[in-house]
């Protein structure tokens, strides 16, 4: 073990970066838990429209949900490729994951724009405030994930993302999958359980 590698390991024998990422994801559970709770507490308490029944587009969001689920598949395939030292497929799957993330963000931008045109903004009512804060925070996380994936793609093209750096892809993957599981909950609670 080199000195550089040794500095990343703890007394547990586990990599400190991976422990840190899981601790961060744990803290994110509390963040999104509070945002989802706030949405549920104020659900149905808006005194003026538009409300959930009038404005949410389930078919459109179902497609964007499918896109995000498939991005998680592309992410694990990228990890499998980098682990076996397959540079070409690492790039293909990283680019696919980032592209699917961008498509998801495109759906969200379209949804937000439509809502604003239909009179629902952050200030309109309790539904608008809690909906935009919750889904907007999630969208910001997706955007950060896309930037992270693109940075890994650049590192790959620089020849600095070989099998020995697979943990870098795994850490990005943990973040990406967490963003996916948060959306799984949001899709059910906000869109389907109206």
């Amino acid at each position, binding site marked *: 073990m080199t000195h550089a590698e040794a500095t990343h390991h703890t007394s547990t024998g586990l990599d400190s970066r991976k422990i840190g990422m899981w601790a961060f994801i744990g803290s994110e559970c509390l963040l999104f838990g509070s945002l*989802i709770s706030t949405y549920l507490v104020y659900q149905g308490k808006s005194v003026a429209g538009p409300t959930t029944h009038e404005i949410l587009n389930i078919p459109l969001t179902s497609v964007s949900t499918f896109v995000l*689920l498939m991005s*998680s598949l592309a992410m694990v395939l990228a990890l499998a490729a980098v682990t076996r030292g397959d540079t070409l497929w690492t790039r293909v799957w990283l680019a696919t994951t980032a592209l699917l993330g961008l498509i998801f963000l495109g759906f969200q931008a379209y949804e937000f724009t439509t809502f604003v045109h239909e009179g629902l903004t952050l200030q309109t009512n309790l539904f608008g405030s809690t909906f935009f804060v919750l889904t907007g925070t999630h969208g910001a996380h997706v955007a950060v994930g896309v930037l992270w994936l693109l940075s890994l793609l650049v590192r790959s093209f620089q020849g600095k993302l070989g099998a020995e750096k697979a943990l870098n892809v795994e850490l990005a*993957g943990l973040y990406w999958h967490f963003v996916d599981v948060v959306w799984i909950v949001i*899709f*059910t609670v906000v869109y389907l359980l109206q």
Partner: protein
Amino acid sequence: MSERLQHDEQAHPGVGTYLTVAGVLTVITLVEVGVFYVPAFQGLLAPVLLTLSAVKFVLVVGFYMHLKTDHHLFRVIFAVPLLIAMAVMVALLFLFGVIAL
């Protein structure tokens, strides 16, 4: 890498497992949307959708995030704040009268 690390961090699932999980996630999502549109299910909508959502959650965390095979410490680090978050959610929903006994 220590022997303990090699022992505790087992090999990740293969591509076949990843594809199977993706297929199951897709089917569950289709069922969720289908259930939403079927009037007969309206009375059971909440328990059915929450159960399906929980299954998707466990599949992604277990197989894609590798918690099923990784070191148990990662499971603890993730599960403790998750359980706290869920407890806070339930407490808030009781406090504001969204759910009641």
